[in-house]
């Protein structure tokens, strides 16, 4: 019972934390670029403002355009519920494993792409086509990187993977894990529309992907999509942080263990946020035609990760 309540609580925590993580990355990036930067809690104000605004919808748009933000948000939130955040194992692990998380995220991506096509604006279609290209190349990589983890843990269940890595700390340094981590990191950047692949800071670039799709959205729809995008970043951060470096995740439900879990979660999120901000400051955006090359590089990494975990089982 307590574990069920915790699962719910942890879902709410993730929902609440997500905009803050995006704000933190933005603030760090601003500091690194010698700008003052908006405070880390700025995205909360933006969300509140957007929820209060009127919704303007193109008259060519169908029901799909109105439904998509809800699908995107709910599917991402469902994925966030399944990811181990504070404690393992939770009863909710029985609902879905790693594959479910990946395809829930992909469901949101597909609906967002459809919504980009729906109002018939030129930019939206371009964004959708690019997003689908990236998603089609990123998805096999995610699946493979995850199989590398699942193979060494003997289960695709997220809770079990975490427990297994904690019981065998040497496994976290095995080449399979490191390669899978690198592959998943690259995919995280592609999937969440971060710098070398997409530029999250601008609406005014011909090569934009995510922003091009959501160009037609306003008001609460935009708020939901932005929130879902923040959630997706947090889900990937949690996967990277807790699957590969699981120490700190609570195994027993004592207040001390949970407090430690919360602290370590915040620490891991901060470290990953710093990594992303540094990367975004250091690298220039890739030409669109080089993105498939980056993704095939990460695919090869994931392939090698699976091979080496398969052979060193």
């Amino acid at each position, binding site marked *: 019972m307590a574990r069920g309540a915790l699962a719910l609580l942890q879902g709410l925590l993730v929902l609440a934390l997500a905009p803050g993580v995006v704000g933190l990355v933005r603030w760090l990036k601003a500091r690194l670029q010698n700008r003052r930067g908006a405070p880390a809690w700025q995205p909360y104000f933006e969300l509140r403002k957007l929820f209060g605004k009127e919704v303007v919808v193109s008259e060519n748009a169908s029901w799909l355009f109105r439904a998509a933000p809800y699908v995107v948000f709910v599917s991402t939130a469902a994925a966030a519920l399944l990811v181990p955040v504070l404690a393992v194992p939770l009863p909710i692990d029985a609902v879905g494993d790693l594959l479910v998380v990946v395809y829930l995220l992909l469901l949101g991506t597909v609906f967002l792409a459809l919504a980009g096509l729906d109002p018939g604006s030129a930019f939206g279609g371009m964004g959708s086509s690019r997003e689908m290209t990236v998603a089609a190349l990123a998805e096999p990589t995610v699946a493979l990187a995850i199989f590398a983890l699942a193979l060494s843990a003997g289960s695709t269940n997220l809770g079990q993977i975490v427990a297994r890595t904690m019981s065998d700390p*040497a496994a976290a340094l095995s080449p399979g894990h490191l*390669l899978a981590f690198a592959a998943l990191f690259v995919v995280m950047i592609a999937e969440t529309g971060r710098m070398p692949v997409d530029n999250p800071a601008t609406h005014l670039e011909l090569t934009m992907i995510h922003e091009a799709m959501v160009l037609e959205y306003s008001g609460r729809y935009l708020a939901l999509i932005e929130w879902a995008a923040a959630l997706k970043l947090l889900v990937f951060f949690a996967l990277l942080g807790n699957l590969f470096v699981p120490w700190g995740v609570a195994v027993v439900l004592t207040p001390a263990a949970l407090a430690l879990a919360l602290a370590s979660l915040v620490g891991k999120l901060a470290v990953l946020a710093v990594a992303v901000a540094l990367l975004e400051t250091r690298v220039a955006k890739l030409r669109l035609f080089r993105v*498939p090359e*980056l993704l*095939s590089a990460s695919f*090869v*990494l994931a*392939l*090698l990760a699976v*091979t080496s975990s398969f052979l060193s089982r």
Partner: protein
Amino acid sequence: MESLFAQLVVLESSLVLIFGLVLLWRRRVPAYVSAFTWQSLVLGAVALTVGWFGRERELYFIGGLLVLVKGVAIPRLLGRMERRFASEREIAPYVNTATSLLVAGLLVLFGYAIMRPVVAASDLPTRAGMPLAMGLVLVSLFVVVSRKKALTQVVGFLMLENGIALLAILGTYGIPLIVELGVFLDALMGFLVMQIFVYRIHSTFETIDVDQLDRLRH
């Protein structure tokens, strides 16, 4: 102790292989040279690790030599050559980047497949790294045949040499020192000869694109 040794060796061998793969993704000659440099330095670290855990004094010497020759001397020469041909920095491969990465991945898998019996027969703690070394040998062969510029083929050849050295260190804890020295000298001489060739090609054809070599007149 044994497991730490095995972990470290596999980790370093994968790094050596990854620098080989990084090469395929990069586009410019300086990036090739720096990937090769890092690879040689990690290879030196492999030799030192095996020397430390396997109690083989000679490997320290070989590791030091690896770092000096392949980590410092050859990259400097490569850098000098690269500056000379600065106008030909962009690498024009026969196979595009995405395909070459996939091919390289398959080659590494193939390396795993052919080294299976060897790994099964061996009981050295370093055996897990051997397929990676074989994979590197295959990948560097692929670099040699799929890149057009003479300079990048030289880098591919040097990487091939690294792969063979890695295989020797992992499979037998290093071959006798005198043989190793001979190999080093061979590699260095080979490199110098190739350097002369590249300069000659450049002065005759005014390019180091080997595709142009079938053009006999100039």
